[in-house]
């Protein structure tokens, strides 16, 4: 039977897929820079490809792209975009980051964008990073992005959590509601500190090349971290 966390995640993203797609049109510049530096011969896996906002530009640049997502509804949206863009070098798979159905040492690069922070339980997030290390060829590179814990919007929440007993949940866990187009659906997030992201990357056996904080919505504190890592 499918894992309870996977099932919950699948249901959540299926429910908000259309609404999410209408608000997530623009790719992130950090990710486009990474894609533009890949060779035209590259095989790339986009783990948690969502609505395909990075997968489509990647398919235009690289030889082959494999898109993995837990939500069937999001995959249907991507499939439509593949047809609209007349692309024949994309293969989609309905699966998850914690158990990637791709053979060892196969891809030259991985996109792991805004996905890991939606996985409950630290051991599962760590496993997803190990999976990325496993599917990457030697010296293959991945770009990983996660939301930052101490960004302006959630800073007060986590400062309060520091001062009270957090119980059961792992520190950094938070339910964030999707309230658009008449929907009101909670999504699991684990927001990262820079140190935690660095530690998890290291523990998964990946080499950290660089890590940058960016401010998309925050005025004072980083809201996202982008890490470039290398397999070994």
């Amino acid at each position, binding site marked *: *039977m499918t894992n309870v966390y996977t099932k919950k995640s699948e249901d959540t993203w299926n429910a908000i897929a259309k609404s999410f797609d209408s608000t997530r049109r623009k790719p992130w510049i950090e990710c486009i820079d990474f894609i533009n530096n890949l060779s035209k011969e590259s095989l790339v896996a986009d783990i948690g490809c969502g609505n395909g906002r990075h997968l489509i530009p990647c398919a235009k640049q690289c030889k082959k792209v494999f898109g993995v997502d837990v939500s069937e509804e999001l995959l249907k949206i991507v499939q439509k975009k593949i047809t609209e863009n007349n692309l024949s070098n994309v*293969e*989609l*798979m*309905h699966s998850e980051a914690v*158990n990637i159905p*791709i*053979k060892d040492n196969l891809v030259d690069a991985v996109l792991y964008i805004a996905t890991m922070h939606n996985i409950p339980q630290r051991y599962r997030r760590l496993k997803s990073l190990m999976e990325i290390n496993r599917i990457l060829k030697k010296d293959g590179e991945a770009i990983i992005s996660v939301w930052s814990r101490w960004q302006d919007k959630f800073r007060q929440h986590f400062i309060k959590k520091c001062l009270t007993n957090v119980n059961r949940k792992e520190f950094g866990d938070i339910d964030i509601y999707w309230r658009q187009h008449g929907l009101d659906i909670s999504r699991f997030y684990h927001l990262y500190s820079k140190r935690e992201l660095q530690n998890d990357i290291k523990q998964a056996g990946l080499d950290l090349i660089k890590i940058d904080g960016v401010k998309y919505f925050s005025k004072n504190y980083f809201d996202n971290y982008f890490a470039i890592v290398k397999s070994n």
Partner: protein
Amino acid sequence: MKKEMLDILCCPTCKGDLELEIKKEDEGEIIEGSFTCKKCNCTYSIDEGIPNLLPK
């Protein structure tokens, strides 16, 4: 999904090689079918061209 994906995909759980059974094909694209893991015997379906490889 193209047939060549057999060289790319593995069982999400045990990473074993998969065996492909085609039920419906259209211009080289597999529309309906299934995979069976040669190692752990788990089966996975292919629906509307997309393999469902969520762990069982």
